[in-house]
């Protein structure tokens, strides 16, 4: 049994989505981690869920940086632990500088909630190993600020290093190069705008999110950090 720590920031609202996905569909130990927690040793994976941490005030993800648990998460990430930021979590990770780039207001300036197709750009990451290169999966998005920006130089590096993990099949929000998910250079930290945790039960329209959660589990079971 692996332990997934789900960071609960004031304003997180997909914390329970992550919790049930991990507990009921991945059948692993899901635990909420209050944002004032300082020791995150015992978790095998850390997740920053979607939502509106601190109301998304100022900039989405900007104020979450100052929670002690997020501080501790940075240290765990540096040690090489798997860290996943979904939606607002992705925004937090870029604000922290753990991931390159920034997430800006969607091109149409509106919140977008719908299923989208995404393609796998790198199947050799701890988050995508159950998928094939180029495979298309169906995941929901639900965000107002998912328009991923990086400058041209960084983009070339990301591509060269295989840090672009998922791309939207069609332009959804104006993201540079239709990027939907990126990892850090080391490959243990991922941020993604689509919600795999919302796509674990065919009853709700798709279970493709299980590929991503399952890949992480495989990685841990193979003895990955």
């Amino acid at each position: 049994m692996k332990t997934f720590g789900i960071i609960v920031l004031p304003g997180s609202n997909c914390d329970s989505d992550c919790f049930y996905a991990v507990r009921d569909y991945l059948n692993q130990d899901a635990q909420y981690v209050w944002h004032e927690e300082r020791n995150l040793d015992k978790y095998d994976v850390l997740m920053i869920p979607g939502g509106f941490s601190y109301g998304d005030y100022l900039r989405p993800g900007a104020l979450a940086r100052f929670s002690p648990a997020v501080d501790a998460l940075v240290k765990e990430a540096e040690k090489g632990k798997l860290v996943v930021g979904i939606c607002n979590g992705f925004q937090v990770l870029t604000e922290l500088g753990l991931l390159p780039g920034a997430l800006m207001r969607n091109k149409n300036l509106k919140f977008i909630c719908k299923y989208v197709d995404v393609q796998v750009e790198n199947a050799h990451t701890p988050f995508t190993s159950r998928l094939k290169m180029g495979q298309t999966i169906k995941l929901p998005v639900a965000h107002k600020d998912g328009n991923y920006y990086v400058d041209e130089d960084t983009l070339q590096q990301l591509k060269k290093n295989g840090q672009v993990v998922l791309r939207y099949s069609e332009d959804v929000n104006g993201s540079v190069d239709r990027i939907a998910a990126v990892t850090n250079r080391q490959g243990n930290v991922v941020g993604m705008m689509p919600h795999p945790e919302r796509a674990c039960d065919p009853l709700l329209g798709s279970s493709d999110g299980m590929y991503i959660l399952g890949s992480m589990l495989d990685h841990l079971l193979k003895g990955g950090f």
Partner: protein
Amino acid sequence: MENSNTTPLWRTLGLTDLEYEQIVSGLGREPNFTELAMFSVMWSEHCAYKNSKPLLKMLPSKGQRVMQGPGENAGVLDIGDGLALVMKIESHNHPSAVEPYQGAATGVGGIVRDIFAMGARPVVLMDSLRFGSLGEGRTNYLFEQVVAGISDYGNCIGVPTVGGEIYFQDCYQKSPLVNALCAGIVEQDKMQTGKASGVGSPVLIVGATTGRDGIGGASFASQELGEDAEEKLPSVQVGDPFMEKLLIEACLEAYETGFVVAVQDMGAAGITSSASEMAARGEVGMELNLDCVPLRAEGMAAHEILISESQERMLLVVEKGKEDQIKQIMEKWGLHAAIMGRVTDDGWLRVCYHGEVVAQLPAQLLAEGAPQYIREGIPSEHLKDIQDLDVTALQPPADLECTLLELLKSPNIASKAWVFEQYDHMVRTDTVVRPGSDAAVVRIKGKHQALAFTTDCNATYCFLDPYEGAKAAVVEAARNLSMVGAEPIGITDCLNFGNPEDPAVYWQMQRCIEGIRDACQVLNIPVVSGNVSLYNETELGPIFPTPVIGCAGLIPDVSRVCTMGLKDDGDVVLVLGE
């Protein structure tokens, strides 16, 4: 009490001479200014239902599943397995006409608080909207801003907006309607009420600080929007969905302790309404000290604190001696919680400020003493002409294909994806049938049963024949639910009308309510909560009568949900009914 010009103060505050007399005779003395301000908001149409209460009594509100009918913050229905469904709909029409973004946002905030005030976790939002024709006047602006307001607020608090309705029609040109429905789920033994009890129990004000927002908003909402509506702007309230999200979590955690005796949200008329209604329901009194209220603005007068409509606040009555535990929970969530009073046994609301008693009123008189008006409804003269349409004299359209395309182009028929894609309708991972179907379906994790929701009303029908139109709204709602496989179990209704002092409008309201009553009786669906919004009219005249029906249904087995998409080649198509 008169102010400088000769209009008596009570009239400028929206009370009639007769109402003022009733206050004086009920009190046995003249009210002071603070007290009069409190009466003016509590006896407004918005809070007191002066014109609608006698009519609302007609609605059937009993049934095997009904655990709480009208009279509390929201209605409650037994859905089996020890669970209950809490639901209510509410209008925020007038605020949205003035400031559509904030008006709609705070409308969502208000209805959500009603639901968690009953102890339930809010799990579903819906919105029923009416605007003028697209492209005319401020319609596009109002429409975009209202949708943005609902989207930003609902998405932030993490409650999925799973459905609703939108119509564009000229009669709403200057009187848009914004009705929001919220439903929640609670374990039956954890239900909360707004009934204060326990002499000496501390009264806590929790959540946002109190400022001058929306002062007089409640009485404002009960007046027709005149040409000078924009002048009344300072009363605009600003919503803080982040605060609301914290408030939801903190309150639900506080209820878990079992130490919360009673709780109510502060909507219209703020501290005044929540305190007096909680005291009146519990047949107790309350002593309040305004010096303890965390304020946001400087130099606020007693009446301003008492009737402020600052959003995202709750009033809690807590077991004596347990206040620190509750405060700790609130502080964990970063919220203010201040002890501002205690429960007394004498039925009076006694308010102190700066060491003086500034108001002293019987809670019952304030909360429930407003007069009720039974008027005479008279159908409008020219209704007959409109109704006398000889359908057989109409020519069928020459080019049916063209007509079909014309119809599909109508914003009233076209896809509403532009709207519902702006709403997070999937958060909480329970939305089984998403917007775009007859009714939305939401599962309950770990249970077999699921819930279905719809809102319906065709106001043109109601205009042509209020009785038949309202009946049709109920029946349509029931039909929509049965289409997804649900049995309709309860209704919450939002009655939007023009000025009830106009006999033709009063008649519409009367007939609509009769229509709802009769349909509910036949279908055996109780009305467990609702809301009335009157004075929806401008110089352009009253809106069409718009009794929006929000209906909840129960699906015994979530795997048996039916959606409307065609499924497979060769499936047989049947037509049922006549």
